């Protein structure tokens, strides 16, 4: 396994350096970056699978000259699981990049992008490998900075610069909280080694534990994009090149989930009061619902996908929160189930979100726009991209028998098992969270009907869409790989769940390996087979078989008469794309029903013909959704900081003498203290 680790890290190192050495060759520019990345991520996939199945964690370390810092790594099942997730998404993105980088010819330095891409993947890998707090923070900061550079790839655009700045500030606020969390552990543990965090010399006082819980939630939550700390995410993720967006939305936010589980269940030992789980659960439910609601109003395909990341982080946290509540009440089997459901959704979301972002990238590549209102009819022009995007859409809408459905089913089940909790308040809250999840699921379905239907179906709405062509083969392979993984994760939960059980069981203390399978291993069960079971392969077979039955009935009854093609009825005139339902129109009822959340502003200006007031010459329609969080939460803070900075400018007069005086005064004050 150590050899694989060397291949993994070496691959990334080569991938960072090689693009600069070979940047002169113009006609295979992306290969020097992609090839090492493919090797490294493949090694990562194998290493992750080995780590998931091996019984003993693998450790290794290099000491450094700095005190407190050792480059220690440790691969336990949790690390291995996230390593696998990163590497799978990274593999697809690397293959995809071979074709996609042509999009940046002459617009950005392909070699720099390639090196940053490798560095970004490497830093994420190091974060999950790290077994030392200091090392973790360094890797974390690298990950944040490298992703910032990737976000501002197209820095000539003002909105990209804004997105980058917003991201940079938010991520550093988050990092500050993470540093504070680690300092709390350091204080009692006496060392930055994770081993000392786990088993501190003096146990943490309860108050400190609570502070650590909250700090970690804010710090890692900022990266994960929980409401209300999500505001940067819909700006930053879409601004990056699409294969980077896929990694940021698919993988990077999951690293925060990794860290949360590490802190709560590993460092804090899985001992917490009930309200911790409750807070996580509520944040999860709110993030899920608001995420999907804002996604519905987006017509920029990549922003829409970014908001869905907020939603899915919410779903993951619902599973984890339920697990934490069960853990408090000693219902450890259910705690295992809840945590497992959260982790299953983590890898599922990583796969289908990466797939969808790659699909969005393909649309951008083919049409040069991200605005859904300019797409249309693309399924006929780009059948491969369309089919892959459809698989992603069906998965994220949680429809059987795909992977998204299986993990949402598990989350539902763990919420439904709440009737075992002895507390009546929580007994009612968990089903309510399930109801919110149901609403979230249904709205996500509506959103992906919109995303797929408006983009890929009917007539093209612009010349760009009319002239679109299928993307190059490497891009198709990248998408097809993820689509295949999605299908596999959906059909084979009976294999995945026991593996995830190995990840979770050490933290909750109870393994449910013997209780999660039914029907000779063909079906998945919750802890109690009588309570619930699900068999995706049987459902898939059933769907296939019954479709054939449908075909058979048709053939038997009428024979397959040749169908006739004719234009769509357009009320007597020829159908044009302007008659089609737009994305804005599609979500209008939803906007109206939930107007208290959206607080939309609609502006309709009509210019009439001079001859008559009854004939409109031109109409202008404008519609905005109120960015509530930005307006009421962030703007006041920004205004306060700006005002404070304005006041502080007084002492920064620009005079050298004054600055020397400051230094002098400071010195005297320090001397006074020293005495």
């Amino acid at each position, binding site marked *: 396994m150590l050899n694989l680790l060397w291949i993994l890290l070496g691959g990334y190192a080569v991938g960072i350096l090689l693009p600069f050495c070979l940047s002169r060759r113009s006609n295979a520019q992306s290969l020097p970056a992609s090839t090492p990345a493919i090797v490294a991520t493949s090694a990562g996939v194998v290493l992750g699978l080995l780590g998931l199945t091996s019984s003993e964690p693998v450790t290794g370390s290099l000491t450094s000259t700095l005190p407190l810092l050792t480059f220690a790594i440790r691969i336990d099942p949790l690390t291995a699981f996230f390593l696998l997730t990163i590497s799978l998404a990274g593999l697809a993105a690397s293959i995809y990049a071979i074709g996609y980088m042509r999009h940046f010819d002459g617009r950005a330095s392909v070699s720099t992008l390639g090196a940053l891409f490798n560095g970004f993947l490497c830093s994420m890998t190091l974060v999950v490998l790290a077994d030392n707090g200091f090392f973790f923070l360094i890797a974390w900061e690298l990950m944040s900075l490298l992703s910032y550079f990737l976000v501002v790839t197209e820095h000539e655009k003002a909105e990209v610069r804004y997105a980058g700045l917003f991201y940079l500030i938010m991520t550093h606020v988050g990092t500050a909280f993470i540093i504070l969390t680690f300092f709390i552990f350091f204080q009692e543990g006496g060392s930055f080694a994770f081993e000392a965090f786990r088993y501190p010399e003096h146990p943490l006082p309860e108050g400190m534990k609570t502070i650590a819980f909250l700090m970690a939630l804010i710090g890692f939550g900022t990266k994960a994009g929980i409401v209300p700390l999500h505001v940067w995410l819909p700006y930053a993720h879409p601004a990056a090149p699409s294969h980077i967006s896929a990694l940021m939305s698919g993988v990077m936010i999951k690293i925060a989930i990794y860290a949360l589980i590490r802190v709560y269940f590993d460092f804090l030992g899985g001992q917490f009061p009930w309200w911790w789980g409750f807070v996580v659960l509520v944040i999860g439910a709110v993030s899920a619902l608001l995420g999907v609601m804002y996604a519905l109003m987006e017509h920029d395909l990549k922003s829409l996908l970014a908001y869905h990341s907020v939603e899915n982080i919410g779903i993951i946290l619902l599973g984890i929160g339920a697990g934490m509540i069960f853990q408090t009440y000693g219902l450890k089997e259910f705690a295992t189930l809840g945590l497992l459901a959260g982790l299953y959704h983590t890898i599922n979301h990583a796969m289908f979100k990466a797939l969808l972002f790659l699909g969005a990238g393909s649309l951008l590549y083919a049409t040069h726009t991200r605005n859904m209102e300019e797409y249309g*009819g693309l399924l006929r022009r780009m059948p491969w991209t369309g089919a892959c995007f459809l698989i992603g859409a*069906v998965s994220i*809408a*949680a*429809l*059987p028998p795909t992977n998204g459905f299986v993990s949402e089913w598990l989350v539902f089940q763990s919420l*439904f098992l709440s*009737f075992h909790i002895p507390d009546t308040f929580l007994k*009612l809250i968990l*089903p*309510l969270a399930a*109801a919110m999840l*149901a609403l979230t*699921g*249904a*709205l996500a*379905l*509506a959103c*992906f*009907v*919109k995303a*797929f*239907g*408006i983009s890929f*179906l*009917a*007539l093209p709405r612009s010349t760009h869409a009319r002239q679109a062509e299928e993307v190059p083969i490497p891009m198709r392979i990248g998408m097809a790989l993820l689509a295949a993984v999605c299908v596999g994760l959906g059909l084979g939960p009976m294999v995945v769940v026991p593996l995830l059980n190995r990840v979770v069981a050490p933290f909750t203390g109870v393994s449910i390996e013997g209780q999660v399978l039914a*029907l000779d291993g063909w079906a998945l069960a919750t802890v109690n087979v*009588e309570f*619930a*079971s*699900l068999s995706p392969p*049987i*459902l898939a077979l*059933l769907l296939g078989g*019954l*479709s054939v*039955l*449908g075909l058979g009935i*048709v053939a038997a009854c*009428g024979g397959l*008469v*040749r*169908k*006739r*093609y*004719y*234009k*769509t*009825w357009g009320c007597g005139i020829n*159908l044009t794309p302007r*008659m089609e*339902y737009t994305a804005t*129109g*599609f*979500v*209008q*009822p*939803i906007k109206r*029903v939930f107007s208290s959340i959206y607080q939309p502003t609609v502006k309709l200006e009509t210019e009439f013909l001079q001859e008559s007031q009854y004939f409109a010459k031109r109409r202008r329609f404008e519609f905005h959704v109120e960015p509530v969080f930005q307006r009421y939460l962030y703007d006041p803070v920004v205004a306060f900081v700006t005002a404070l900075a304005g006041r502080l400018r007084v002492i920064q007069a620009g005079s050298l003498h004054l600055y020397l005086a400051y230094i002098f005064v400071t010195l005297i004050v320090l001397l006074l203290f020293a005495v």
Partner: protein
Amino acid sequence: MLDAFALIVMQTAVLLVVAPLIVGLIRKVKARLQCRRGASVFQPYADLVKLLRKQPVVSSTTSWIFTATPYILFASTLAAGLLVPVFISRTPLSLAGNIIALVYLLALGTFFLMLAGLDAGSSFGGMGSSREAIVASLTEPAMMLSIFAIALTAGSTNLSTIVHKTALLQGIVTDPSPHLMAFAALVIVAIAETGRVPVDNPATHLELTMIHEAMILEYSGRYLALVEWAAGLKLLVFLTLIVNVSAPWGIATSMEPAALGIGLAAYLVKVSGLAVFIGLLESMFAKLRLFRVTDLLGTAFILALLGLIFFYVLRG
């Protein structure tokens, strides 16, 4: 194994045959209440056969989604039906998916139908899809809560277990009010999901009011036949769910032929009874404005929530 297979085939056949009959029955009840003689209850069969034989016209702007959707819709609805105990409480496929799987299988069909509505490119289809999206979204929370309230009493979300336990009078609470509230919610949900009055009107082709009919406006021939059949099946699945979960009396609890016969007869009686009730409801109410549907579905949600609270309060 062979028994199980025979049961699956039998259940498929029963569902396929009964579905058009229920549609015909509801139409007949409505016609009689409007002092019309109405078409025969077997008319839907004749419609299906005729549609299956006709040459379909397909819009030239559509993609493969449009022609694949009827098959997907048909298969997913029928698959959902196979998860529900119809005439025997231990239905063989019940372990393949519980009640949540059923809800999401139906959602799979809706997803593709909404896509097909958009595919032809006419405003009608898009309008239907858009409206279906809001109705489907709002029914979901009420459905999930009522399902949970029902599952609580039986201690299971597996439909067979729920039905089996209720049929053998196991785990019946002394006070049925939580159950009743959950059922009222489920009836509202069923009406909304299957596009009946007062949420949608299956008999209209007026653009201001239609939802389901707008989505399927471009379908013809065999595709329309499958879509119509699937719509009937969906209605039947919900009716079956309601009658067999609330009143599984007469349902076969063993594999004996006599028990199966009684189960089938009891099923037909119960489902027809409920269909007549739906027909009455449809005649008594006018269709609601689209944005008033929210209130109706909100009521369903509150009812289900009250059922849940009552359950815990009564149990202490």
